[in-house]
């Protein structure tokens, strides 16, 4: 009965998400853990996100220039860059980089905690293991991914600016004004960061879920890591389509 099994695992994941929300209490210990997790999964993802953003900005600018050249509308390349980054590329690529960089480490850490019976030990000491291990990682991801998206987008726009203005030779004033005219503060800018927060929550939940419920063996940990990256990436891409369809009307 594959359908029943699929529904059951979905339900288990949903209950896990609920238990994470219920376990998130703003205690002093929680904030200490949260700070550490923001450092581990947020601040240390900064270099890869920054470099990734710069290269994406460069290639989107080149691609846009090539396509718009046909119509003599090369001045519009910054509209393409801005809209493309805020609407899709920024949140999605940041989330995918985050899944690869931090999601895998969340799953591996929790999987190893499970394999070395640390999670059982926490429950034996009457400490809620979800509150101690999962909740800080979840909230750290919800905070970090939008901030990383901001860094990704700013690096991409800066790199695109250099490519467009100093290499291709588009006028700098046109570049900024076209971007300002086409990027709406609510419809594009805010939505990008709402999307990013949802992707952060999704990827952290998936990674924590598979890590937390990994087989308590070395192999189980490696399976959990793989599954975290595969499932979280897929979910991010699927949610992105759903969110784009719901949030962007024009």
């Amino acid at each position, binding site marked *: 009965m594959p359908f029943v099994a699929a529904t059951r695992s979905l339900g288990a994941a949903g209950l896990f998400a609920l238990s994470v929300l219920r376990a998130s209490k703003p205690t002093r210990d929680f904030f200490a853990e949260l700070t550490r997790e*923001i450092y581990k999964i947020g*601040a240390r993802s900064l270099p890869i996100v920054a470099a990734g953003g710069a290269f994406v900005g460069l290639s989107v600018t080149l691609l846009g220039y090539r396509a718009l050249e046909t119509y003599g509308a090369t001045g519009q390349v910054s509209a393409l860059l801005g809209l493309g980054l805020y609407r899709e590329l920024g949140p999605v690529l940041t989330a995918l980089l985050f899944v690869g960089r931090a999601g895998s480490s969340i799953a591996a850490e929790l999987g190893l905690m499970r394999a070395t019976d640390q999670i059982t030990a926490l429950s034996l000491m009457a400490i809620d293991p979800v509150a101690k291990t999962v909740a800080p990682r979840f909230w750290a991801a919800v905070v970090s991914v939008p901030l990383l998206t901001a860094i990704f987008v700013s690096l991409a726009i800066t790199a695109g600016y250099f490519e467009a203005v100093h290499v291709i030779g588009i006028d700098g004033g046109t570049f900024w004004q076209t971007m300002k005219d086409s990027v709406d503060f609510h419809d594009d800018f805010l939505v990008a960061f709402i999307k990013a927060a949802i992707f952060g929550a999704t990827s952290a939940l998936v990674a924590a879920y598979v890590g937390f419920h990994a087989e308590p063996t070395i192999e189980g940990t490696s399976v959990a890591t793989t599954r975290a990256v595969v499932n979280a990436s897929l979910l991010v891409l699927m949610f992105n389509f759903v969110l784009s369809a719901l949030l962007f009307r024009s």
Partner: protein
Amino acid sequence: MRGPRLEFAVGAFLLLALASLLVLALASTNNKWGFGGQTYPLKARFSSVGQLRTSAPVKIGGVVVGQVSDISLDPVKYDSIVTLSIDDRYKDLPADTSAGVFTAGLLGESFVGLSPGGDVETLKPGDEIALTQSAVDLMQLVGKYMFSGGGEKPAAASTTSTPSDAPTEQIK
């Protein structure tokens, strides 16, 4: 890594990210922080709106003063009613202001252009603009050029040759 150094690293990360958020919001968006409310509606009837879509700009003398908020069809007269939301700063448009649907360039976006008249009466929110000019269908114009008038072959060929590759983009 624990204690003060960790907190410094996290603080630096948060500051950097928030700073880039702020710079992005200021430098790359249209800076419309408010949630509407500072616009007022005007209506205009057109027999055809062409390629006009909602959220297209409304311009006076080339300056954007608002946007198209709704396009609907009158179920009795069968002409399209375009609702414009105009920025509150331009409150006192004369009552004999006229509206037209124009296209920016050959392939550009459609927009509504307003040209204010000289009336002392002003348009109230929700009023209808009486003088309108519908969208010009480029395809029809080209068709008329191509199939009317037999004489002056070379001249006709030269006038049609420039826009001839443009309309093919629109046939889809």
